[in-house]
């Protein structure tokens, strides 16, 4: 297939390990140690992420807290990443790593779909992810729960930062994974219905939110069905709403300025006469 030869994005890095930034990082650390300054911590996603197979597809779930050290950086971040119409991936670990890794493999899948003119398979995404992560020997801190439906059925994979994978009927990752796994181990069964599966996923994420300090805020879910439909729900369960807390703060009424407080004395309207673009069209030579 001649289309493959020039397609360097599928084979995007030169062979061998690329530790280009390790030297730079070491230098930064040395400088920081001398000047007693505090290095900014990478934003991690703390996290509880889960995925499970049910009768007609897969359900993925994730919490929405992103932490930088002991501070919550983002109260409502998105941890369920789009890979393909029928494949989604939850990410735990360093937020930038999970975001960019899934984005990269998502675009590789799109190019492959154009080349092969057929829908992506979950095992393809898994292979691309694990090959990239192994190349970086665990320095890319991305722990992923990959789920989707393809022609061979519903699949859930767990992918670790060093590149090992596992194919399982249900799995959890992240700091809240034990809390979520305890819920799965007590209540998961074969061939659950969609509503039961979604309830179980929500319950397990809530266990992570309330029992793990690295996870919090609310729960997002994603249902991918064998019939090809997908449903991503941001904030499927939101047990920690911020609005009532904000409303409880007594602010001065001077801050609430209604419309029409400032009287309008006069109005003039001058349309701009500006040439935005100068376009000429020349026919191409055959």
């Amino acid at each position, binding site marked *: 297939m001649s289309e493959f030869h020039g397609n360097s994005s599928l084979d995007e890095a030169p062979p061998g390990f690329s530790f280009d930034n390790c030297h730079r990082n070491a230098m930064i650390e040395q400088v920081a140690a001398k000047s007693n300054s505090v290095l900014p911590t990478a934003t991690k996603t703390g996290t509880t992420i889960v995925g499970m*197979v049910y009768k007609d597809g897969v359900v993925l779930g994730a919490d929405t807290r992103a932490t930088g050290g002991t501070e919550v950086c983002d109260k409502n971040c998105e941890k369920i990443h789009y890979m393909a119409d029928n494949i989604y991936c939850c990410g735990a670990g360093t937020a930038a790593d999970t975001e960019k890794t899934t984005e990269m493999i998502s675009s590789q899948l799109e190019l492959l779909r154009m080349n092969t003119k057929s829908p992506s398979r979950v*095992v393809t995404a*898994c*292979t691309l*992810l*694990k*090959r990239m992560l192994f190349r970086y020997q665990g320095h890319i801190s991305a722990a992923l729960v990959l789920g989707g439906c393809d022609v*061979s*059925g*519903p*699949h859930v*994979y767990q992918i670790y930062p060093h590149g*090992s*994978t*596992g*194919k399982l*009927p249900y799995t959890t990752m992240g700091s809240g994974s*034990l*809390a979520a*796994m*305890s*819920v799965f*181990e*007590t209540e998961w*069964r*074969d*061939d659950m219905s969609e509503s039961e599966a979604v309830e179980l996923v929500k319950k397990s994420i809530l*266990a992570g939110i*309330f*029992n793990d300090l690295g996870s919090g805020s609310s729960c997002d879910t994603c249902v991918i069905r064998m019939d090809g439909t997908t449903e991503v729900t941001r904030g499927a369960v939101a047990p920690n709403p911020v609005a009532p807390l904000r409303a409880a703060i007594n602010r001065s009424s001077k801050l609430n300025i209604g419309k029409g407080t400032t009287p309008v004395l006069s109005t003039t309207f001058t349309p701009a006469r500006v040439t935005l673009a100068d376009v000429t069209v020349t026919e191409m030579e055959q």
Partner: protein
Amino acid sequence: MHTSLTATARLILFSLYVISMLSTTATAESSSIVEAGGTQRTRRPIVTGTSVLGIKYRDGVMLASDTLCSYGTMAKYKDARRLVPVNPVTLVGGGGEYSDFQEVTALLKRNALEDKCTADSLYEEDNSVECAKEVWNYLRAVMYNRRNKMNPLWNDLVVAGFHIEGATKVPFLGLVDKIGTSYEDNVVATGFGSYLALPILREKWRPDLEEGEARALMEDCLRVLFYRDCRALNRIQIAKATSDGVLVSEPYEIDTSWDAASFVSPKGGLEGDGGW
């Protein structure tokens, strides 16, 4: 052993035993550095017990644990008793170094015996028995003191029983860890149990749980621990403290299920770890 060994034979046997013990004493870190003055301190636990769970229910307090003591990665003692009644009204459960747990229970039992022998009367009405809360406070002092000497008793201890408040008996459940942190709650768990069992216990707890419900809940949690904790066993013990006294069950096995169709023959037919 009543064999007729000569003195020299016994000495040789003993020294061989000591040499073999020294060579099999574990691995990476030196666990037996002798410091100045000939003293040594606990640096790491050797024979360990895993989680202990505790829950208050309608009639009192219930504790649960498995009966395993691990020697590193080896499941060495499969009939270790980690739930012990230290006096007629108090239960203590312990995870961590088993020898330190034996020391703690021996200490508490000595105290109970002394209380009994020096009581003003032979009858129980004069409150000479320490209630669970007193045992818990005493243990906090013991553990914190040892921590200050940088020589801890390497345990997480759960204390269950009743607390005498005026004329009433109120169920009591508390935890003391190896650095002397102590707290009481409706549900407690040590070790891996705090990650795997506590979410389930917190979700399912009600103040009016029946004994059967509480026991089923404990069994479910210990089953999850057996699935997911590498140092757990499916042979368990349950103990309860009620207003009538304290009772520790005999150990028994809990059943586990490994035959879910999705594990035996996964959907989608693709086997192995996925990808290549």
